[in-house]
C-alpha cells in the first residue's frame, strides 16, 4: 500500500480514537470540570471528522459554535454553581454496570440497523464552496433558515427578559 495513504489512514484513525477517548473521558471522570474539557475535545474531534470527510465549512462552523460558544456556556454553568468542582460531589451513581450493558446493547442495535440501510454514497468527496451553501440556504432551504432565525430571536428576547432586574 502506498505509504502516504497509510499515513493518512493512520491520521484518520488517530482522529477517531481521539474523539472516542475524549468522549469516554468526559463521562468517566469525577471532576466535572475535567468532564467539560473532555467534551470540548470530543467536539473538536468531531470537527476533525468533518474535515476528513471534506466538509470544511461544517467543520469550521462546528468549532466556532460548539467549542467557541456552547462549551463556554457550559463551563460558565459549571463555574457559577458553587461547590460543584469539589471532589465530594458525586458525578456517578451506583448503577454503572446495568447502564453500561444497556447502552452497549443500544449501540449494537443501532449500528446493525444503520448498517442494513443502503445509503447513497458519493464516489468521490468534494468540498462544497460556501457560496453554494449560501445559495442553498436562500433557495430550497429558506423555510428552515427563517424558522431558526425566529427561534434565535425569541431565545434572545427571552434571555433579556429573564436577565433584567425587576425594577
Amino acid at each position, binding site marked *: 500500500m*502506498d505509504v502516504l495513504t497509510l499515513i493518512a489512514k493512520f491520521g484518520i484513525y488517530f482522529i477517531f480514537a481521539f474523539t472516542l477517548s475524549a468522549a469516554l473521558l468526559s463521562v468517566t471522570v469525577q*471532576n466535572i*470540570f475535567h468532564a467539560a474539557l473532555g467534551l470540548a475535545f470530543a467536539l*473538536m474531534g468531531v470537527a476533525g471528522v468533518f474535515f476528513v470527510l471534506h466538509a470544511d465549512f461544517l467543520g469550521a462552523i462546528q468549532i*466556532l459554535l460548539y467549542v*467557541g460558544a456552547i462549551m*463556554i456556556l457550559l463551563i460558565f454553568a459549571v463555574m457559577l454553581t458553587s461547590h460543584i*468542582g469539589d471532589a465530594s460531589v458525586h458525578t456517578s451513581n451506583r448503577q454503572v454496570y446495568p447502564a453500561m450493558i444497556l447502552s452497549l446493547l443500544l449501540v449494537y442495535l443501532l449500528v446493525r440497523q444503520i448498517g442494513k440501510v443502503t445509503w447513497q454514497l458519493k464516489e468521490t468527496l468534494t468540498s462544497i*464552496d*460556501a457560496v453554494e451553501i449560501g445559495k442553498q440556504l436562500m433557495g430550497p432551504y429558506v423555510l428552515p433558515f427563517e424558522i431558526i432565525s425566529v427561534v434565535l430571536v425569541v431565545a434572545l428576547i427571552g434571555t433579556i427578559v429573564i436577565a433584567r432586574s425587576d425594577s
Partner: protein
Amino acid sequence: MEKLDQVFVHLKAAIVHLAGSFLPDWLVVIISILIPIVGIAMFGPVTMMYLTLIERKLLARIQNRLGPNRVGKFGLLQPLADGVKMLTKEDVVPTNADKIAHFLAPILIVIPALLVFAVIPFGRNMIAIDLNIGVLFFLAISATTTIFIFTAAWGSRNKFSLLGGMRSVAQMISYEIPFVLSAVPVFLITGTFSTAHIVEAQPGLHWFVWTPWGFVGFLIFFLCGVAECNRTPFDLPEAESEIIAGFHTEYSGMKFALFYMAEFMNVFTVSGLVVTLYLGGWQGPFLPSWIWFLIKTYVLILIMMWFRGTFPRVRIDQLMNFAWKFLLPLSLVNILATGVWYYLRAPLNFLISGLIVVIGFSFLMFVNRHSLPKKRIYRYA
C-alpha cells in the same frame, strides 16, 4: 525583483528537488509539507522574542527613558536573557490547584496561536495551506482560545484568577461578534473565504480600506483584534495592577513564557489578518510581496504598541458597552453600506455608502451619549 519576490518559493522548490533526487516519493511529499511548517516554527517564536524587545524600547522612548540597552548592543540579546531567566525559574504550582488543568492550560493555549499561521498569506504564492475556508478557519480557531483561558483561570484555584479569567472570557466572546461581522463585508465583495483570493481581489493599490465600508470595517476589525489579544486599552483581565495578573497569576517560569508567547503570536496573526482582509495583504507597487506584507503587519503592530503607551485602561462595563451597544450595530450598518456599494456604480456608490456609514455612526453616538465620560474641568487651588 521578480526573483527576490519569489525567493522563498524557489528555495522550497530547490530543497524539494534536492530531496527528490535521492529520497523516495512519499518522503519528498512529507518534506514539502514540512518545509512551511518548519519555516513558521522558526519565524514565529523568533519574531515574538524580538517583538517583546521592540515593545519595551518603544514604550520606554514614549515614556522619556531608555529601554533595555545593556544586554548586547542596543539590548538585542535581551530576549535571550529573558528566555534563560524564564527557563531557569522555579515552577510553582499551588497545592490545591487542579493539576491537570494547571499543567495543560499553557500548552493548549499556544496551539490555536500557532495553528492560525497556516492561513496567512505571507507573499505571492507563499501561504502554508490555501484552505477555501481560510478566514473562517482563523476565526474558529481563535475562538477556541477562550476555553483554554478559562481552563487556566479555573486550574489556579484562586478567586482572583477566576475573576480575571471570567472577565477575559466575557471580553473575548463579546468582541468576537463584531470581529466576525466586520469581516463579512469582505466576504460579500470577494465571494470567498480563502485568504489568497481575498488578497488577489485587491490589486495594486486598490485596497479595501479606501472604500467607506472598508474604512469603517478596518477600524472595527482592528479594535476588535486588539480586544481579542487582551492588549491595552482592553487589557483589564491581565494587567499588572488589576486582579494581580488575571488568569495567569499562578503561573511562573516556562508556563508564563508560553502564555506570553501565545499573546504575542496572537498579536502578529491578528495584525496579519487585518492586513490581509483590508489593507491589501502583500499587494504593493515596487517592493517584493513579502516585504510589503511584513511592513504593513509591523506598522499595525507598532500602532498596537502605540495604543499601549498612550491610553488608560477601559473599565469592564465601558468595555461591554462599547462592544454591544456601539461596535455591533455599527458593523451591521457597515454590511448594509457594503451591499449598497456593491450594487451601485461609481462614484454614486461611494457617496451613498459613505452617507449610510456617517448617518449610522452619528446615530449610534447620539444614542450612546450618556456612556461617554464627561469632559473633566480641572480647577487648581
